[in-house]
């Protein structure tokens, strides 16, 4: 009974929930701090979106829950770390052009390397277990162990410090609100990726076929499209996004460590459960919710920060078991 009430008013409840989420923290946080936290939350949300969107599209199209996504994220961070180490003079140069260049080189290298890794993973491992959720989870979990251990073999087991390009460091002070430059960059990257994904999915033929495949794989095949090629492609794109997320996150948290994927994979799972598996917009909304609440709560009640997202996830599951934006709606 309570459930049907929830279902009927789910839209309104979600709206009220959103308002509460954004406004309630103001009661306990001074306005300028609130704005700084909001920016931090948005930046973190955008980075989570990069990881979660890959998980979400891969699940939507291929019906594969990729537990190895977190390790691809870590690989992206480490490849980026290597590029930064090799081009350290560019990182430390007081020149926006050189800083941007090193960031772009690192980004492209990380995305291509990890996309290739993703293709390998899909072709060699994941392809053998299509249609069997249990084995998919097991096998991608196994792949995670291998990929994380390989990081330890290649880069060593210790944490490494990630240096942010010089002109990306520091902050602007706008009307007493502290605006960190790198956070703004993160928000811009997230928006660009979101816009790009939407453009591809809605405006190109390939994107339309992917969306059709999310709804009905068999029918797309019966219409003459090579679904397996599509799977590999989508897996590679998801992996590349994870790599971008990993690189951006390592600059956000100023470090790389072999197990970093695990933590963010969890965040990604929470995000896609909140947002709805298979929806890019759902991933964005879910990621922003998680990013914002995490930052507000970490300021107000530090020890509860890890739990509050799980709490939100549970509430969403009770109200809308398929998430806020189910695929195909």
């Amino acid at each position: 009974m309570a459930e049907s009430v929830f279902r009927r008013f789910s839209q309104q409840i979600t709206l009220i929930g959103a308002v509460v989420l954004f406004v309630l923290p103001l009661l306990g946080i001074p306005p300028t701090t609130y704005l700084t936290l909001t920016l931090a939350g948005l930046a973190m949300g955008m980075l989570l979106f990069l990881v979660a969107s890959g998980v979400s599209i891969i699940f939507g199209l291929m019906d594969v829950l990729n537990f190895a996504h977190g390790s691809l994220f870590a690989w992206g961070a480490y490849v980026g770390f290597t590029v930064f180490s090799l081009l350290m003079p560019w990182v430390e140069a007081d020149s926006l052009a050189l800083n941007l260049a090193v960031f772009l080189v690192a980004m492209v290298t990380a995305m291509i390397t990890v996309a290739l890794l993703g293709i390998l993973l899909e072709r060699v491992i994941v392809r053998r277990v299509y249609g069997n959720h249990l084995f998919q989870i097991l096998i991608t979990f196994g792949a995670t162990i291998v990929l994380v251990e390989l990081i330890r073999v290649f880069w060593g087991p210790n944490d490494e410090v990630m240096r942010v390009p010089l002109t990306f460091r520091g902050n602007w002070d706008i009307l007493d609100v502290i605006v960190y430059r790198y956070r703004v960059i993160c928000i811009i990257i997230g928006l660009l990726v979101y816009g790009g994904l939407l453009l591809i999915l809605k405006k190109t033929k390939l994107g339309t076929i992917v969306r059709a495949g999310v709804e009905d794989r068999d029918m797309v095949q019966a219409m003459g499209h090579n679904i397996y090629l599509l799977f590999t492609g989508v897996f590679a794109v998801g992996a590349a996004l994870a790599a971008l997320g990993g690189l951006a996150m390592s600059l956000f948290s100023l470090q790389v460590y072999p197990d970093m994927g695990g933590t963010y994979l969890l965040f990604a799972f929470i995000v896609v459960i909140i947002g709805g598996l298979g929806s890019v917009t759902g991933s964005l909304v879910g990621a922003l919710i998680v990013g914002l609440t995490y930052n507000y709560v970490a300021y107000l009640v530090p020890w509860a920060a890890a739990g509050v997202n799980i709490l939100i996830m549970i509430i969403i599951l009770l109200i809308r078991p398929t998430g806020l934006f189910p695929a195909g709606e």
Partner: protein
Amino acid sequence: MAEPTPVHLFHMSEKRRQFKSSGFFLKMAVLLLFILVPFLFPSFKTVDLAMQIVMFAALVASFDILLGYTGILSFGHGMFFGIGAYCVAFLIGKYGSPSYGNLILGFLLAAAVSAVLALLISLLTLRVKAIFFAMITLAIAELAIVLATKLSGLTGGEDGISLFTPGIFSPAFNLGEFMGIDINGRVVTYYFILFSCLALFLIMLRFTKSPLGRVLQAIRDNVQRAEALGYNTFLYQSISITFGCVVAGLVGALYALWVGYVNPESSLSVMTIMLDVLLMVIIGGMGTLYGGLIGAAFLKITQTYLPDLQHLAKDLFPQAEFLHNIMERWLLLFGVLFILVVIFFPKGVIGSIREYGARRKSRGLNKTA
């Protein structure tokens, strides 16, 4: 006395056959081996190894109830194990005196907390989609670790809690010498845990052979059909999950009793406990219960003697730097092994043996026919 029916006779002959089969003797021999371990190999290392194998065999079997018999993958099984361990640690370590009453209370608490939490999680997730179970249990397990670490006032944080075992379980207890070894608290604890795990294992075996267990397998094989037959799949799956998690909690409680301390790293960690449990169940064979013992024995023995292997590798091939790196990263090898087993050997050791036996049997039947 009434004439036995043919069905009755068949059951009786089956039972007799059961006690005569080579499998039965093998099981008895294994049990005997574990009973004799403190006498045959009294060193601390081997007794501890045997105990770890026994406890993990029971833990893996309880995980198999979920994975192999219900078709549900939980990353929270280690958490239930840890909850059981912490419950005992709270009652005879941090908040209670070491008495038998508190110990029993600790076990009851372990079972109760596990049951309530497992029920809540299944109510929450099974409604949605079975694969959510893996994601949500992983999230909740990580949360448990964070809470156990951060709420250090309550849980002792990273350092954990040391236990004080009561009476006959305490290290100070000594019954004197028997057949050349001291019957001390540690030996008593060994047998207590061995027989507790045996009891848990038999209960699980009974559970899977019961009508309930058969319904669960029907659900695992085909949810739609089971639903069409009128079974409340949700209810059955919840019961099974709760049962498996309660056993995990109890094994965790026994574990705490054996190692004498709990901390987040050793009792809750997804990466250490869950990884071991998954490897064990895959290697031994899903849906077999006995597979847990094989998997646990293989993994625990390998892990225990791994440092020796590493030394051996260094002595034999002092130049092979790469080999040393790989040996340092033994987890890498386990990961590869894990993937290979899932791909090429998905039934595990026990499952494959059973399949081979069934094939031979059917071939024999064909020959006689």
